């Protein structure tokens, strides 16, 4: 056995900082008096900011830690930065909101830190055992967070998320067992070598399929999406925003990592599976979103539909000429989705009343007269999710559709374009309500909330006008 060295720890420094600050805060929180738990929010944000500082210095670095258990490369650096920014935005959204709904507890931020650490470990996993542990580290705090307000609906969201999440974990563990049975190893790089060297490819394919099912639950691909609208609606909105961004990033980057690294030999079969999964997810997500009247449920189906768009990037993963740009497009659109996601959930939080009212689309009527800035920001987010210029969402969808065409899947690109047009109906319905109908909506004015909404709105437009730097970052992040 070799002792772990500094190089091993260096590969996961941002993760270690998050875990250390969460453990310290768990103790320190005891000495912070009730009613002043906002201090924990600032300390947690400080921990995330420190981790973000280290993550930024790791751009371009590469390495393998703990005998291949963890990996540091451009891909993990990109995912870490995106996740840490999501963490900061989640804290900013939660700060005033959980006070308002009477759920202000110090544990909220600590659980968020633990969950965030798990998400980052997902992106850095070099072994299926790490994928599993990271998945549980991200999920278990999220189950608690969903139910943290202790209202009947939140408890229901918690138990539903828990049961389906644990069910999905069962699939991942059993899939891993079969992959281990087929190859005799759980290391992602070693699986490829063994698969080329006379492993049982049938067993490997069944294992990979079970892992895909389990991860599909996590990032809410159809037909594994049933929990999503219920959990997104029932959980406190700030938790929903964190879940919709973080859990989706983590699930998708783990899928990229596992399939591109380990299951390359199965690419020929898996391409068809991903094609079908992407098409069904886009179609079902967008069509059901049209019928929703509750904004939280509508955004939940919109999140499902976006998982479908990003899955498009997986379809050509076995084709080396296209795979790099396709995955870069997927990572780019993931960032575009995350920014618009936090902004739109921020607006939902601003309009939500303490007793859970103010969540119907009709409640947005007349927002442009009373709160023109808020209405303008929501319009920007809706346009970006729909994919219309000059927003970053349009650029992301353009890259995705182009990579689908280059990969030789024009049918999928056509489905994507048609479903984007369908999505215009429900995204623009909110805009129409805000600008063309009369109403008297009340919006909360909380400085951190306004800051988050403003920042994400500006980022959506600015990154839409100058996307090349983000795309370069995403391109350097692809696994080769």
């Amino acid at each position, binding site marked *: 056995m070799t002792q772990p060295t500094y190089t091993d720890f260096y590969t996961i420094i941002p993760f270690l900082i998050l875990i250390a600050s969460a453990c310290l805060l768990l103790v320190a929180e005891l000495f912070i008096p009730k009613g002043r738990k906002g201090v924990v929010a600032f300390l947690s944000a400080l921990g995330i900011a420190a981790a973000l500082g280290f993550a930024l210095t790791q751009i371009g670095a590469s390495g393998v830690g703990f005998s291949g258990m963890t990996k540091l490369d451009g891909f993990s650096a990109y995912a870490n930065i995106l996740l840490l920014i999501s963490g900061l935005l989640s804290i900013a959204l939660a700060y005033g909101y959980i006070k308002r709904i009477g759920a202000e507890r110090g544990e909220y931020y600590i659980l968020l830190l633990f969950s965030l650490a798990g998400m980052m470990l997902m992106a850095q996993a070099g072994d299926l*055992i790490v994928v*599993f*542990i990271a998945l*549980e580290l991200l999920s*278990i705090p999220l*189950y*608690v967070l969903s*139910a943290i307000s*202790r209202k*009947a*609906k939140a*408890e*229901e*969201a*918690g*138990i*539903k998320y*828990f*049961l389906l999440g*644990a*069910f999905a*974990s*069962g*699939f991942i*563990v*059993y899939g*891993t*067992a*079969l992959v*281990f*049975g087929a190859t*005799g*190893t*759980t290391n992602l790089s070693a699986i490829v070598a063994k698969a080329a060297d006379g492993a049982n490819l049938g067993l490997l394919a069944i294992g990979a399929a079970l892992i895909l099912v389990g991860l599909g639950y996590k990032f809410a691909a159809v037909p594994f999406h049933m929990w999503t*609208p*219920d959990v997104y*609606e*029932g959980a406190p909105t700030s938790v929903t925003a964190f879940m919709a961004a973080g859990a989706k990033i983590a699930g998708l980057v783990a899928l990229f990592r596992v399939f591109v690294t380990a299951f390359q030999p199965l690419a020929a079969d898996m391409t068809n599976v991903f094609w079908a999964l992407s098409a069904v997810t886009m179609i079902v997500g967008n069509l*059901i979103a049209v*019928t*929703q009247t*509750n904004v939280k*449920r509508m955004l939940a189906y919109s999140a499902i539909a976006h998982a479908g768009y990003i899955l498009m990037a997986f379809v050509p993963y076995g084709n080396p000429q296209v795979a790099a740009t396709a995955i870069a497009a997927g990572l780019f659109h993931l960032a575009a989705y995350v920014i618009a996601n936090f902004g739109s959930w921020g607006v939902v939080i601003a309009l939500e009343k303490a007793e859970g009212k103010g969540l119907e689309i009709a409640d947005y009527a007349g927002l442009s007269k009373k709160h023109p800035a808020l209405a303008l920001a929501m319009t920007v987010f809706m346009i970006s999710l729909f994919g219309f210029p000059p927003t970053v969402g349009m650029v992301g969808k353009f890259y995705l559709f182009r990579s689908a065409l280059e990969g030789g899947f024009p049918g999928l690109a056509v489905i994507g374009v048609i479903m984007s047009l369908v999505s215009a109906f429900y995204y623009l319905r909110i805009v129409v309500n805000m600008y063309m109908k009369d109403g008297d909506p009340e919006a909360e004015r909380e400085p951190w909330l306004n800051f988050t909404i403003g920042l994400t709105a500006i980022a959506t437009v600015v990154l839409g006008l100058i996307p090349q730097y983000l795309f370069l970052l995403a391109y350097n992040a692809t696994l080769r």
Partner: protein
Amino acid sequence: MVSVNYYVALSAILFSIGALGVLSRRNTLIVFMSIELMLNAANLAFVAYARTYDTFSGQIFAFFVIAIAAAEVAIGLALVVEIYKSRNNVNIDDVNSLHG
């Protein structure tokens, strides 16, 4: 020595029973036990394969699964208790105030 295929077949049967249990049973606690059955089916497969390949890593994985399943139990039972306190019932069909 018993062939590994028998162990794997048994684990596949246990996993299927667990998955069917999750999909068909309505009592939260039974659903929960079915999930545990799925995880333990995976453990059986891990240990059986570890013996075939003569490596420890499969057994170590099984230990990790056991530890994490225990953490899941702690959270899951806490949620079930909360649900029971507010509704006097742990039937999944009665926990359905959220729908679109």
